[in-house]
């Protein structure tokens, strides 16, 4: 399993044109091994650009992406092997589904990795199970699926490659609360069992608070905060100033402090708040 280190990385869209835009500005972050890192930031903060750097879909203008100790662009001809190691599930599943049937789509990655047919079969069925896709759907065209099912199919296609690093851009957008909990818990269970590094991009502060070990906050192309959910969400005013938010329960803790009941500002889940209020010592 591997950590990803981002070193002095910058990227400019439309370089040399009048629309030149600096999307990433001298970024230094380490996405640690064996944990879930949440990446949050306003629209246009550079999250998606950064995510596309991690598996080599974009090439840095300057700086390095170091996977397991090696610069992924050391030999540009071998960049495709990085994509097997770093699996990316994109924000819009339509962008990555393409094959005739869901099954073929999921098998595409393993096939290109050179897995044997029986291994492919196994990898596909495990991935289908993991993503919670109903087996009868896998012979259908991915484009006949509902939004939520497409999301699961895209996730299965990446999981079938058993990546060392799993990167998910808004994995639960458009899913109902029950399905969100299910998908995110499965990802967390998988992370705990496999020891992979998982990176999740999301606009849901509640989800990030609940499932991430560390949170990185991006603003205008550069990381501005980093820490555990408790550390990051206790700095509410700074988050508001970069167009973000804190979980509702964190706002309750802030209001409680103003009313003279201080249970701490580092509250980020209901369970945690309840523990502090009832003195049960939760967390």
């Amino acid at each position, binding site marked *: 399993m591997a950590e990803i280190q981002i070193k002095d990385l910058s990227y400019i869209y439309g370089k040399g044109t009048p629309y030149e835009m600096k999307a990433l500005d001298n970024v230094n972050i380490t996405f640690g091994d064996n944990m879930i890192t949440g990446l949050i930031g306003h629209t246009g903060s550079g999250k998606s650009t950064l995510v596309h750097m991690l598996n080599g879909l974009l090439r840095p203008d300057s700086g390095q992406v170091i996977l397991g100790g090696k610069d992924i662009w050391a030999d540009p001809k071998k960049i495709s092997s990085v994509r097997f190691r770093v699996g990316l599930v994109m924000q819009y599943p339509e962008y990555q589904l393409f094959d005739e049937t869901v099954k073929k789509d999921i098998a595409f990655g393993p096939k290109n990795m050179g897995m044997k047919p029986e291994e492919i079969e196994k990898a596909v069925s495990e991935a289908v199970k993991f993503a919670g896709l109903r087996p009868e759907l896998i012979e259908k065209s991915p484009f006949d699926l509902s939004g939520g099912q497409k999301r699961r199919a895209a996730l299965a296609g990446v999981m079938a490659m058993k990546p060392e690093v799993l990167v998910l851009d808004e994995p639960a957008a458009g899913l*109902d609360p029950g399905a969100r909990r299910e998908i995110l818990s499965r990802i967390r269970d998988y992370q705990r069992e496999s020891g992979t590094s998982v990176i999740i991009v999301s606009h849901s502060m*509640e989800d990030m608070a609940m499932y991430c070990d560390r949170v990185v906050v991006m603003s205008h192309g550069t990381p501005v905060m980093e820490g555990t959910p408790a550390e990051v969400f206790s700095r509410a005013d700074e988050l508001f100033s970069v167009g973000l938010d804190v979980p509702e329960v964190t706002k*309750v803790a802030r209001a409680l402090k103003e009313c*003279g009941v201080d249970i701490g500002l580092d509250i980020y889940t209901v369970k945690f708040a309840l523990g502090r209020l009832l003195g049960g010592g939760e967390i």
Partner: protein
Amino acid sequence: MKELIRAEHLSYAYPSDEDGVPAHQALKDVSFTINEGEFVAILGHNGSGKSTLAKLLCMVLEADEGSLYIGGKKMTGDSVSDEDIYSARRDVGMVFQNPDNQLVATIVEEDVAFGCENLGVPSEKIRKRVDYALATVGMTKYARHETHRLSGGQKQRIAIAGAIAMKRKCIIFDESTAMLDPAGRKEVMGTIARLNREENLTVIHITHYMNEATMADRVIVMSDGGIIMDGTPGEVFNRATELWDANLDVPQTTELLWKLKEAGYDVKTDIFDPCECAAEIVRVLKK
């Protein structure tokens, strides 16, 4: 209050297709009335029939059974005139989830004018309506900007402005905040609430964000094609266990108060504002 939409026993099934995918009964016997100026949130798990219902109300789909009335006029059955349908379609519009899928023009004001142009509104009137619509969503200074350079929240506000310019009485928001960042969500929800209050716009807001539903006057909860709850946010979110069973959620404030109640504290559970929630907790702790 004047009735705007009345649904009586609406049912709809998606027909089976040539690949042998069986027909799917998306809506079963759905009845409700929505008055002019109401702000209604619709919650429901994926596949509960929310979007199908939205399509029936916009008359993109036609119900298999039951009757739909818009502005008191019947929209279903054989005796409906095309004119009534066209007029009702002008009254009820929709804003979608993905901001990139609904803007058609490259310049903001042209996009806002698009609907009016198609309705054949005279151009001097269009000018006035577009200026007014842009002002109501707070986007006047972006009138000459390129649409593709706007943020997600701004794009959604432009889509809303297009509907305002068409003088729609009702806008259905089909998860219009799902793809937005927190600031964009606040921006769009603020705009929706203000239009509802100040312009008497009827709002039907489909969402998976429970705290957005608390802003509505009324919350309808759907499950498996039917309505399982219909009441004020306070009434609906007080039924937390039923909501959890239906794959839904309650706002964190309600969850916290609910758990305190379970722990034996005598708290009210139908509170959504974080400050009021804190005040309630302080009240019972001091007892």
